[in-house]
């Protein structure tokens, strides 16, 4: 028997640290819990069919899934090098420079806010559909939305996180429900037989297809949160990529399946008219027809809880984002303060204020909560994330070329493929924005909404250059995240002569 060194006793410190660490499944379930499957299936997909009038949504989900897979190769490699829970803008700052980084930070703040605020629209709609008949009242959508707003603001400020297990169970139930509804649709095709045209690549080469990609990206938003957990992952080099790909696969398969099943349930020729007529109720009407009257109620209940969980998740995401910007002093240090319970105080307050203003404006002007608040808000937010993904891919490449970090595959080739694909998607999406919104070509809205991001970028660039001249020390630590603190105070010369050390024994 070969003799080797005696077995090393496991370090109790290492063991303790590892026991608290997360595996890929845990991370994936945290991430997916913000993805709100029922909200996408019952809310985004039918509204998408109705407003764009295009069938190829299933193909779009699969395509976007593949593109994001290439993106994630570079993403997971970078998340090991740059530990910053602020994610995208840190990569952009370190890859492309600080001015684009600051601009990206503001773009992200805008996008996530739009996503969050849009959810109040679908919450109000779903809650009134469920609770008004149940309670025998006639509360407007915005009444329910305001109620949700109060609870979200309180939960966010008091730093009450949902129990991770509870979230995982809820998400499991949502996925189960979606699969049941999909099966019901597939077993009862309106045309008598299943057709697969929704998956054909040709479905993507129709006018306005760019809109489908934005809708698809909106479904994937949140997968980037997996990078937040890289500090706590059991084996970051392997756990994070696995968690990300698990999320991507689940999302891509679930949504493309559901979109296809929906077209089978109504018949591909009728999907647009049915969804235009029934809106968010499409899925539940189908369930009622296929499975019985109890199911719409079950579906509504899960939709309400799903949206609510997403409301809290995105509220916290914005709060954290603002906090990390405050921590780096991109925003005033005030934003880096926390409450007694550890919540980002001003991040939470600002986000709540934005939500309140949005609900008020939509209520007063009597605008449609489902299409104009939820769908427009959500997809415009998704468009913002698309822009971030595109620029981040470029940042991966630039970082790799500059620092020679990572391999040619994860530093150059995969991000380059992702960049090319995302550029195509971005351009087509921008050109098809009117189709996305369901407004006539040439409508001002189709230019104003994307232009918001242009304006935000400009503000970010100006702000970055202002910071550079006003406060170079802070400017130099932009994008360093956790290390911005150590970057600020590290490297101070030892002034041994200048201090007195008292014997305080």
């Amino acid at each position, binding site marked *: 028997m070969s003799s080797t060194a005696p077995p090393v006793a496991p370090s109790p410190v290492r063991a303790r640290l590892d026991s608290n660490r997360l595996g890929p499944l845990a991370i994936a379930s945290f991430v997916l819990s913000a993805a709100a499957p029922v909200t996408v299936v019952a809310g985004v997909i039918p509204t998408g069919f109705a407003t764009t009038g295009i069938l190829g949504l299933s193909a779009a989900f699969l395509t976007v899934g593949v593109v994001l897979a290439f993106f994630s190769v570079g993403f997971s490699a970078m998340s090991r090098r740059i530990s910053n829970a602020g994610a995208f803008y840190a990569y952009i700052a370190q890859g492309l420079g600080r001015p684009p980084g600051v601009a990206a930070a503001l773009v992200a703040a805008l996008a996530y806010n739009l996503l969050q605020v849009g959810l109040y629209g679908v919450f109000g709609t779903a809650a009134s559909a469920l609770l008004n008949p149940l309670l025998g009242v006639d509360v407007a959508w915005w009444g329910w939305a305001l109620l949700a707003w109060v609870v979200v603001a309180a939960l966010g400020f008091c730093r009450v996180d949902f129990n991770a297990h509870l979230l995982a169970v809820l998400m499991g139930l949502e996925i189960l429900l979606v699969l049941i509804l999909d099966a019901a649709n597939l077993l009862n095709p309106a045309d008598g037989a299943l057709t697969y045209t929704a998956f054909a690549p040709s479905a993507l080469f129709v006018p306005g297809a760019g809109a489908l990609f934005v809708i698809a990206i909106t479904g994937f938003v949140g997968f980037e949160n997996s990078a937040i957990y890289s500090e706590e992952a059991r084996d970051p080099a392997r756990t994070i990529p696995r968690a990300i790909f698990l999320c991507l696969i689940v999302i891509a398969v679930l949504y493309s399946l559901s979109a296809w099943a929906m077209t089978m349930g109504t018949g591909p020729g009728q999907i647009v008219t049915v969804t235009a007529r029934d809106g968010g109720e499409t899925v539940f009407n189908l369930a009622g027809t296929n499975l019985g009257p109890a199911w719409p109620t079950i579906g509504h209940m899960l939709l309400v809880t799903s949206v609510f969980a997403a409301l809290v998740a995105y509220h916290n995401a914005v709060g954290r984002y603002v906090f990390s910007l405050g921590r780096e002093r991109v925003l005033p240090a005030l934003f880096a303060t926390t409450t007694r319970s550890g919540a980002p105080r001003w991040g939470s307050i600002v986000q709540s204020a934005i939500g309140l203003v949005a609900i008020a404006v939509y209520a007063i002007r009597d605008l449609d909560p489902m299409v104009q608040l939820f769908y427009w808000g959500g997809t415009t937010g998704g468009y913002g994330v698309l822009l971030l993904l595109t620029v981040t891919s470029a940042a991966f490449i630039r970082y790799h070329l500059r620092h020679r970090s990572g391999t040619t595959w994860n530093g150059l080739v995969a991000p380059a493929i992702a960049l090319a694909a995302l550029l195509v998607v971005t351009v087509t999406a921008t050109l098809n924005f009117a189709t996305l919104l369901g407004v006539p070509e040439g409508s001002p809205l189709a230019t104003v909404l994307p232009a918001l991001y242009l304006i935000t970028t400009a503000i970010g660039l100006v702000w970055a250059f202002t910071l550079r001249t006003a406060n170079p020390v802070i400017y130099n630590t932009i994008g360093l995240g956790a290390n911005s603190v150590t970057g600020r*105070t*590290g490297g101070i010369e030892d002034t041994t002569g200048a201090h007195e050390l008292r014997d305080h024994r």
Partner: protein
Amino acid sequence: MTGDRARLYLADNLWLIAHHEYSGKSHVSDRALAFGLAGSLLGELVLHNKLTLSPRADLVLTTTEPPTEGLARKVHSLIAAEQARPRGVQVTQTRDWLVYLSEFAAGWTVRRLVHAGYVEKVHGRRALGLVRTTHHQVTDVNHAILPAVGIASRLTRRQPIPAFDVAFAGFALVTGLEKQLLLDVDTGGRTYLRRLLGGLPKSLGSLVAETESAIGDAVLSHRL
């Protein structure tokens, strides 16, 4: 028990300033305080010249001779035991040690304070007398406020402040205890403090920064 502040250590001072002197309730979240105390315990070792931080933020013991004080000796021996392991398996990163120590720091610090007589365990009842509670409370209210008062007055008068107190101020600030620490200190005094913090010896300065960064990251992840 003379209330002699010279007997108190970084972690003890931090615990005292972090808790309301009458109700015993903490001014900051448990997690933030846990990290602050963990950093302070490591800071005590640095002040005793037993520990330094490498440029890559690794903890390095400067001597195998342990400190005389009980809790400092305990922390020292933990680090020493870890550093006796083979290179590849050791835990050396400051952040890892902060995370590890944060689980125990509060309990250990309270025990030291109780042992020294500055803090006592108080039993009480809540919820109309149905729930029995215990919490810790200072035995003498002056102990709680003395650390901050001394620093505050010296800051206001721009007097020199020893490294021990500057380090304590640093940990207090990053833990979120600015209000408790700086009481009525004017803007000039605060600027002076910031300058002093910048002049901390390298290891102490890095340790405070690492603690701040750990607390910040704990806010950002859902695990707070």
